[in-house]
């Protein structure tokens, strides 16, 4: 049953991706992107990653969609027809796909419990979380206690990106005002 739900959600995800490739109206692309993110969030919850699923639903389907829609509001909503042939991009992505399939050949099958990543460090965190940090949610204890520096680095990345966005958009209003004055 678990496997079946996983399979169906994966097929939906691929269908939405194919639709995103084909659609030329950017509004439709953004809305399909939101559907894609919700499917991905459901899939993550089906794979027991509840914290990740909630973050993906809030950030991937919520914040990203709002950002994309506001960018569309400030720019244009239709994609121009393609000018170049598709042969090179298709060849490139198929080549990359073949190399990746070759790379995934030896990876453990879905749902295996006796793989190195599940028996070694993952099991260690599950055992130690309660005695060492008293936090029952292991994802929280790893995020905030064992790997707190990762989270600090993440905050630095968001801060830098925020400054970048502010600097890029800062002059917008001023330039628009100047345009208005020129006209009048």
């Amino acid at each position: 049953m678990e496997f079946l739900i996983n399979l169906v959600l994966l097929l939906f995800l691929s269908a939405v991706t194919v639709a995103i490739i084909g659609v030329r109206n950017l509004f439709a692309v953004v809305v399909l992107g939101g559907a894609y993110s919700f499917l991905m969030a459901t899939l993550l919850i089906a794979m027991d990653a509840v914290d990740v699923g909630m973050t993906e639903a809030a950030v991937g389907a919520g914040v990203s969609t709002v950002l994309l829609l506001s960018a569309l509001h400030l720019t244009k909503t239709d994609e121009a027809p393609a000018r170049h042939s598709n042969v090179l991009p298709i060849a490139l992505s198929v080549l990359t796909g073949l190399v990746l399939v070759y790379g995934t050949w030896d990876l453990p099958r879905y749902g295996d419990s006796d793989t190195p990543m599940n028996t070694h460090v993952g099991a260690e965190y599950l055992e130690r979380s309660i005695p060492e940090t008293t936090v029952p949610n292991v994802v929280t204890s790893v995020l905030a206690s064992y790997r707190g520096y990762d989270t600090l680095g993440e905050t630095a990345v968001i801060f830098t990106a925020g400054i970048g966005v502010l600097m890029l958009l800062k002059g917008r209003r001023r330039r628009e005002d100047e345009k208005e004055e020129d006209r009048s």
Partner: protein
Amino acid sequence: MEGLNELAFVLGGVNHWITVFLIMAGLYIIVSRSNMIKKLVGLSIFQTSVYLLYVSPGKIIGGTAPIISDDFAVYSNPLPHVLILTAIVVGVATLALGLALVVRINEAYGSIEEDEVYSDGDWN
């Protein structure tokens, strides 16, 4: 028997195959489309496929979410979840920066199509 084993091999790796398909789709959109917002959506698909790649091997059939309780004995691996939480937030930060650049380019060139922006420039 041989055929059954092969079927189990293909079905057991279905998360990997779909991950590879999503990476291919994302890469194809980034390379083939000249519209910059579409490119950024392609980049997002590329990024989300990596979430699948990380979280799938941590799932244990019959396990539950890694929240310790007396009622459960088997939990999925919490470590990939933590790494992907970070990746999601960094992904939206890069998306925001990319979109700000697109808005700025649209202001300067009046277009978000890469082809038209290039043909406007002096270097052609």
